[in-house]
């Protein structure tokens, strides 16, 4: 894992002191709320329905045991004892007092964490693949590039007041586990003639105008990625719309200019910028890369897993993924208990997972965009012991990528923007499909719920998506089918008129019945939908 040196630490510490000063000025009345707002937003502090919400960055989704333990301690000390993992590998605390915020940032800084640029119209937390470094199919571990970009984007002087927020994801596998093409810029590392570089996708995003990002360059050499991104951002900063915040994201610019014209402008700017010395030397990437070197895995470990306990075997089949090292496995920890809140973890659960990581996973934890956790380096021989401890803590749900592994935004229970409640609906759906066999029968089925058109719950990218809207003061839920945030990225289509909360659960059941009746051998829900189209589903729902 990356560790701060004295430069990184001094920058984060300076930010804490700066914010302490700003909060004091606000509490003393020297700053009005209007003047304070842009300052607190740059530190991820939002004023929500009931309290302040603080969003903490988890860069590229990697945490140490020490960091996760600290996140749990903060939840216990300053919040109501829990935190919420988001779809962008951040953690949100929903019940923060303004006066406590500087001290929380100081505690985060003590474990090399921060909330810098987790909101505001700037470059946000760089996200990545939760299996980075441990999956066999990657070209390289993408995290060194993500860390390089974390540093490059932090307090970037030119790109801190962009037309709108800007999200970047970096992956290095053909399997896209990070919804890369639904980001403002997505980078996919590829090898060409023995050299590493990036395919660059620009102009993806969700919100009210969802777009899958088109490819704008098929290879940027690794040593020029920073200057190429500067060119991409400069063109966006120049031409991105500022008259209408709903049309200000880069996806609208790329769409309105056309991909070819945007590319041309970027290339023109890149030609000017590539020789300005903006790129760190390769030694810097090497320095960062050394922190992510593969650990010394034990050899000669057993591959067999004792499957005599059926509940354990079910969990292994669902939650455990292949690791590149023999005798090791990747463990997915579900934060989607059937009666819980998707993505929430209590202080005690965070402490437990930190303990497990320390004992069984070389101190490391990953956070996924699907709001789950991962122990990336687990000896197969330890799986049973881990499962037992997870079970005692209510963390042993076996539902990875199944219909109850629901992505949901906080919704109207917390969020000032929401039109509808996401959490109670997620719980109703989870209960309707709770039966293990039924879920397994339906197979991979990614269900995603957003409580408003801003799409934090990624509903456009759900195999089944749900969008909560306000219809004359009553919550109403639209149903979408056929989206995907993976390597086969696509946007879901609305089935037709919306439903009540119970009505949409019934409609989902009808949709899954059609899938079961019509699927061909080996087809996932999404495959069947793509083959037979919307019509049969629509007839079943509205017919």
């Amino acid at each position, binding site marked *: 894992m990356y560790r701060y040196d004295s430069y*990184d630490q001094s920058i984060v510490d*300076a930010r804490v*002191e700066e914010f302490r000063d700003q909060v004091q000025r606000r509490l003393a009345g020297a700053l009005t709320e209007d003047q304070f707002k*842009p300052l607190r937003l740059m530190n991820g502090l939002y004023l929500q329905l009931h309290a302040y919400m603080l969003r903490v960055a988890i860069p590229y989704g990697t945490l140490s045991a020490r960091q996760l333990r600290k996140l749990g301690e903060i939840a216990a000390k300053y919040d109501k004892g829990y935190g919420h993992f988001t779809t962008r590998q951040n953690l949100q605390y929903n019940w923060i007092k303004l006066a406590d915020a500087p001290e929380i940032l100081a505690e985060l800084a003590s474990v090399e964490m921060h909330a810098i640029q987790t909101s505001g119209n700037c470059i946000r937390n760089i996200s990545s693949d939760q299996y980075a470094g441990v999956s066999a199919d990657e070209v390289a571990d993408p995290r060194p590039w993500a860390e390089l970009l974390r540093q490059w984007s932090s307090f970037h*002087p*030119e790109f801190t*007041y962009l037309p709108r927020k800007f999200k970047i994801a970096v992956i290095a596998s053909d399997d896209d586990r990070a919804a890369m093409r639904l980001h403002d810029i997505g980078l996919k590392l590829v090898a060409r003639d023995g050299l590493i570089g990036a395919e660059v996708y620009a102009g993806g995003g969700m919100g009210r105008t969802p777009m899958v990002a088109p490819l704008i360059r098929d290879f940027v050499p690794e040593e020029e990625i920073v200057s190429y991104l500067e060119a991409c951002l400069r063109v966006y*900063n120049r031409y991105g719309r500022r008259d209408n915040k709903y049309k200000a994201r880069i996806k609208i610019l790329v769409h309105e200019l056309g991909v070819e014209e945007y590319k041309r402008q970027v290339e023109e700017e890149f030609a000017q910028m590539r020789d300005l010395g903006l790129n760190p*030397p390769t030694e810097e990437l090497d320095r960062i890369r050394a922190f992510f070197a593969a650990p010394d895995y034990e050899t000669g470990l057993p591959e067999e897993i004792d499957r005599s306990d059926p509940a354990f075997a079910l969990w292994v089949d669902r939650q455990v993924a292949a690791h590149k090292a023999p005798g090791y496995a990747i463990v997915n920890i579900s934060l989607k208990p059937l009666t819980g809140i998707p993505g929430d973890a209590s202080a005690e659960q965070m402490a437990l997972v930190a303990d497990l990581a320390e004992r069984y996973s070389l101190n490391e934890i990953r956070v996924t965009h699907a709001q789950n956790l991962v122990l990336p380096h687990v000896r197969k021989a330890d799986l049973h012991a881990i499962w037992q401890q997870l079970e005692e803590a209510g963390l042993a749900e076996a539902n990875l990528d199944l219909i109850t592994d629901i992505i949901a935004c906080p919704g109207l229970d917390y969020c000032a923007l929401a039109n509808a409640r996401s959490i109670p609906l997620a719980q109703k759906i989870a209960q309707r499909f709770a039966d293990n066999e039924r879920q397994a029968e339906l197979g991979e089925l990614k269900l995603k719920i957003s409580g408003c058109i801003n799409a934090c719950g990624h509903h456009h990218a759900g195999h089944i998506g749900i969008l909560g809207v306000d219809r004359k003061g009553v919550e109403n839920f639209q149903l979408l089918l056929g989206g995907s945030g993976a390597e086969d990225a696509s946007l879901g289509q609305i089935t037709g008129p919306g439903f009540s909360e119970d009505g949409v659960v019934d409609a989902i059941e009808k949709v899954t019945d059609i899938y079961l009746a019509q699927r061909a051998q080996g087809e996932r829900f999404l495959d069947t939908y793509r083959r037979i189209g919307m019509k049969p589903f629509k007839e079943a729902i509205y017919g």
Partner: protein
Amino acid sequence: MVEFLSFRDGEAAQEPAVTVESFTGQSNSTAVRIEAGEDARELLPHLDRLSLVEVNFPAFGDGRGYSAARILREAGYQGELRAVGDVLVDQIVAMRRCGFDSFHPSKALDDAAVERALTRYADVYQKSVDGRAPVWAKRHPEKIHG
């Protein structure tokens, strides 16, 4: 409180700035004002006869002026580069990094707060046009020349 802030040696330019349109026409003016949305690249052929470029910030959240400034400095502009309009204390550091060397905000600034802001961060992560060595250059001094 200060109404005008300069980081240049000598007198600030006094000539009133004209619009980009009249400047790039036949004007003899040596001072020009860029509005948000105007393309700083139009000035590049004329940099040698300019002594003042004002960049207007109509609202503090409109960040186009940061790019305008950096583009001019990257092209070698040495004259005064002045940020005017809705310019706040907490933005001075980034503006300095993009090449602004004078400030005439629509609301006066607290000079003590400006001083605190300018000295708060000892290090920066990016190379820009202010000559500050980024952290990566300090980490690898043997690789950086000039």
